[in-house]
């Protein structure tokens, strides 16, 4: 486990090792599109962490898990005449936190089994949220409010998932956030998490 975390950390830090001291010959304003696409895709593999409630009539526990945030479509409410308000997958944070509506997909995986509720460890949530700037046009703080359906099979019931409403607060240009979900299901009443998202 430590090895895996170290490896992920290594990739992230290597990619984010911003070299102020890099040599001048490398400075250019010609965009490196392939490098951008590859590093962006790699960064998206860095998971956010979550704790998912697992319960029955007698017992309850919170399971540690990982989740990934994918944004197939984001529609910004605050764009200038030169840029499109609609973005797919690679969403400029500026257009997200200054106010936007987005459709999202979240694969989720808990590190241990659901002992009480009967749900499977892997699930995918899909939903819509609105991002609302609060401080410094959202750069320092923005909040989100949304709803989603969690596709997660339950071995003890016939259910294939449940609905949730979610809220979140995000700082540092949306890179770091806290989210809370209220689930409309007695067997997993809530989950909360720490979100990491870059671009």
């Amino acid at each position: 486990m430590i090895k895996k975390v170290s490896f992920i950390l290594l990739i992230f830090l290597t990619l984010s090792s911003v070299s102020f001291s890099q040599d001048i010959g490398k400075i250019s304003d010609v965009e490196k599109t392939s490098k951008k696409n590859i590093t962006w895709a790699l960064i998206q593999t860095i998971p956010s962490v979550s704790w998912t409630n697992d319960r029955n009539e007698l017992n309850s526990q919170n399971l540690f898990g990982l989740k990934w945030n994918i944004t197939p479509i984001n529609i910004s409410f605050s764009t200038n005449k030169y840029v499109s308000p609609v973005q797919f997958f690679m969403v400029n944070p500026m257009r997200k936190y200054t106010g936007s509506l987005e459709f999202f997909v979240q694969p989720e995986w808990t590190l241990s089994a659901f002992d009480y509720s009967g749900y499977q460890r892997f699930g995918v949530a899909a939903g819509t949220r609105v991002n609302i700037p609060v401080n410094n046009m959202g750069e320092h703080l923005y909040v989100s409010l949304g709803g989603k359906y969690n596709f997660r099979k339950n071995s003890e019931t016939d259910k294939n998932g449940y609905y949730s409403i979610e809220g979140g607060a995000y700082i540092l240009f949306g890179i770091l956030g806290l989210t809370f979900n209220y689930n409309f299901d007695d067997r997993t009443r809530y989950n909360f998490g720490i979100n990491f998202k870059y671009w």
Partner: protein
Amino acid sequence: MKRSFIIIIFVTVLTLALEGCGLFRIGVVNAGRTIFNNPEKPVNVEKNPIRDNVKLSVLWAGHSTALIQMYDKVILIDPVFNNVISGVMTRKYEAAIDLTNVKKIDMILVSHAHMDHLSISTLDDLEEKYSSAKLIVPMGAEEFLPGYDYDIIRLRTGNSAKQNFVGQTYEHNGLKVTAVFALHFGGRFGLDSYSWNMPGCTGFIVEYQDLTVFYAGDSVYEENGYKAIGSRFDIDLALVPVGPCRDCEEDNSFSHIAAAGALKVFDDLKAKNMVPVHYGALEYSRDPDYPVNVLKELIAKKDGSRNTGQSGDTYKDRIKIIDEGELFIFEELDIDQK
């Protein structure tokens, strides 16, 4: 367990090596200051920065923010009035500018989208009073601008020899602004700048009547670029960054022009006057005033070795080091020009 421990140590050491004690250190130092400190209030902030009898003046608000008056035109450069920049860097001084008596701003120039040059909240605050201003940005920076009431003008940059170091020009009511050479980064959020090389940085030439002002933006020293600008424009005033720098006697440091490089830029431009900027407010790796202190030493050294004997010809005469909030009037209007 032992193996895991070695891996963690390896990752940590490698990370620190890759970071080169650069941003990592800056972030850590400034995060502490941001939590525990507030910026100081600047002592003397000019209350009337725009005057009827002025031909050319500059008010330096700290870091790279400056208010320029060219006759009846007012130009605001890289306005950042926030106390905390990038979420983790607290200014040493609050932005030293008071716009209470400034009735209009004709143009707002933003050289690139880095957070010490583009503050979307400052622009938002200014919009209420100065929505008729033209907001001029380099091509690429529009990606990092929200929707404003300003008329946003995107200029094609001229950052390479292929373009002869001069980009697109925009003119409004006789005030002409041209994107010129700068060698730095676009982007805003770290990787998009330094790794993906998103475009969107520029220097500016502003021309009005018989006056020409140059603002370098952020850049590194590149002889051909600045000589090309100097040969094409007759520059009255150059605003040139002098930091941040670890060794300010180098031409460049941290992908910025350092104090020694700034003097070379000034020479290559053949400008009449220079005001150093991009120091004083933010601590990168040393005292924020270190770049300008080195600049003063270099000026004294160079003036000492040249000793032309002619008044007005020395670096000291032509390079005006002004305090935050200070208005420096380069030229007043003649009585018949008023």
